[in-house]
C-alpha cells in the first residue's frame, strides 16, 4: 500500500445539516435503509461545557479492516491508496462483516439481501474529483486527506472523539478536529 486516504472531519465547522448524507444517497441512488454515511451528534456531557457538536462518519477505510479479514467471499479489497472497496457482486449476504465492524458501517440492504458500504467514491477520485460527500459539504467540515504522521502531528488533529470505539481495534482512517469550547457566562 503506497498511501492511506481517509477523511478529516472538523467538528468545529460541522453544523449537522446532513448534506453529506444526502449527497451520498443521491450519488449512488441508495435505498433508504443502508446508511453509507451518517451524521451523529455527540452527547452534550462528553465535554466540560455543554456543546452541540456533530460528526459525520462513513466507512473509515481502516488500516486493519475487520470486514476484509472475516469476509468469506473476498468481497472486500484494499487498494494501493488504502480505500477498502466492497464488491456487491461477490457478496452472499452472510452479514459477518456487519458484526465485525465496530462502526456499523457495512450495512445490509434488506431489499437486495446484500451488504453495502461507502467505497470512498473511488471512481471520482480516479477522475481527479472529490468524493460526493466532501464536495457537498457547505461549511467545508469534511475533507479527503492522506492519513500519515505529518497529519497526526498537526495541532488539534485527533484520532478519536468521545463516544467512538477505540481506534486500536481497526486503525480507522479518519481524523477529527474537535470543537472549541466556548466561554459560558452564568447570569444568576
Amino acid at each position, binding site marked *: 500500500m503506497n498511501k492511506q486516504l481517509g477523511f478529516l472531519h472538523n467538528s468545529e465547522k460541522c453544523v449537522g445539516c446532513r448534506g453529506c448524507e444526502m449527497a451520498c444517497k443521491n450519488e449512488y441512488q441508495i435505498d433508504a435503509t443502508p446508511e453509507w454515511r451518517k451524521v451523529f451528534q455527540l452527547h452534550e456531557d462528553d465535554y466540560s461545557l455543554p456543546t452541540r457538536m456533530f460528526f459525520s462518519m462513513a466507512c473509515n477505510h481502516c488500516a486493519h479492516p475487520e470486514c476484509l479479514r472475516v*469476509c*468469506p467471499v473476498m468481497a472486500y479489497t484494499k487498494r494501493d491508496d488504502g480505500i477498502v472497496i466492497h464488491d456487491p457482486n461477490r457478496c452472499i449476504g452472510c452479514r459477518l462483516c456487519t458484526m465485525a465492524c465496530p462502526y*456499523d458501517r457495512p450495512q445490509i440492504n434488506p431489499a437486495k439481501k446484500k451488504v453495502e458500504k461507502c467505497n470512498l467514491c473511488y471512481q471520482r477520485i480516479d477522475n481527479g474529483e472529490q468524493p460526493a460527500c466532501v464536495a457537498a459539504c457547505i461549511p467545508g467540515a469534511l475533507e479527503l486527506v492522506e492519513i500519515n504522521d505529518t497529519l497526526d502531528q498537526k495541532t488539534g488533529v485527533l484520532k478519536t472523539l468521545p463516544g467512538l470505539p477505540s481506534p486500536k*481495534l481497526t486503525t480507522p482512517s479518519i481524523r477529527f478536529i474537535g470543537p472549541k469550547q466556548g466561554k459560558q457566562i452564568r447570569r444568576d
Partner: protein
Amino acid sequence: MGDWEWPLILFTVLGQIAIGIILMLWWLDRGRDHLDTQLFKQSVLISGGLLILALLASLFHLGHPEAAYRALAHLGSSWLSREILLFLLTFLAWIYLFWQSKQQTGSRTLGLGITSVLGLLGVVSSAMIYVLLRVPAWNNAGPVLCFLLTTGLLGALCTLVLGRKLLQTTQKKLLLQFSLGCTIASLLLYIIYSSMLSASTEGAATLNFLLNSPLFWSRALLGWFAPLLLLISILKNPQVDKTNLILTVTLLAGLGEILGRALFYLSATGIQITALF
C-alpha cells in the same frame, strides 16, 4: 443485542450433535469392548442425516444461498471459509464412513477417526468465526469451549439413546460419566465466563441481558440443573431401568443447548458508536 438466528442455531447444534455421535463411536470403538455393528450402521446413518440437515439449515442464513459456494474463497483469513471447507470435508469423510458401514469386513476405526478429527476442526472453526475484536463477550476462548462441550454432551447423550439396547453396560457407564463431566464443565465454564464479562461495558450489557432473561434461567434449569440431577441419579442407581430417564435427560439437555445457542446470538453486544442519533 443480536437476533434469533434460527438457521445458525440449527446449523451449529445439529452439526455438533452429528460430529459428537461420530466422535463417541470412535471413542467406544477404540475401547476394549468393540462397538456393536448394528449400532455403528444406525448411528452413522443418523449422524449423516443430521449433518445434511445442518448444512441445509446454514444456507437459510445467507441472503443469497445460491452463491454459497463462494464462501470457500477466503481461506487465508476468514474462519467462515475454513468452517465451510472443514464441514464439507467432514461430509466427504462421512460418505466414506457410510460406504464402510455397508461393507461386511474391514476396519472402521480409520473412517471414524478421520471424520471425528475433521468434524472437531470444523466445530473449532465455527466457534472461531465469533471470536471478534468488536464483541468482548465472544473475543475469548468461550465460544470454542462452549461449542466443544455441546459436541461432547449431546454426542454422548444421543449415542446413549441410539444404543440403548445395543451398548454394553460399561460403554453406557462411560458415556453417562462423560455426559456428566461435560455438564459440570459447561456450568463451571459459564460461571467463570460470566464473571469475566463485567470487565467491559459491552460484556456487562451481555451479562445484564442474560441475568434478566427468562430464557437464560430456562436454559440453566433444562440444560444444567435437571441433567445434572438426572445423570447423578442414573449413575447412582445402576439396577434401575434407565431407558426413559436417558431419553428425558437427552431431550432436556438438547433443549438447554438450543436455548443456550439462541442466547449466545441474542446476548452479543458489540463495541459501537455511543453518540446520539
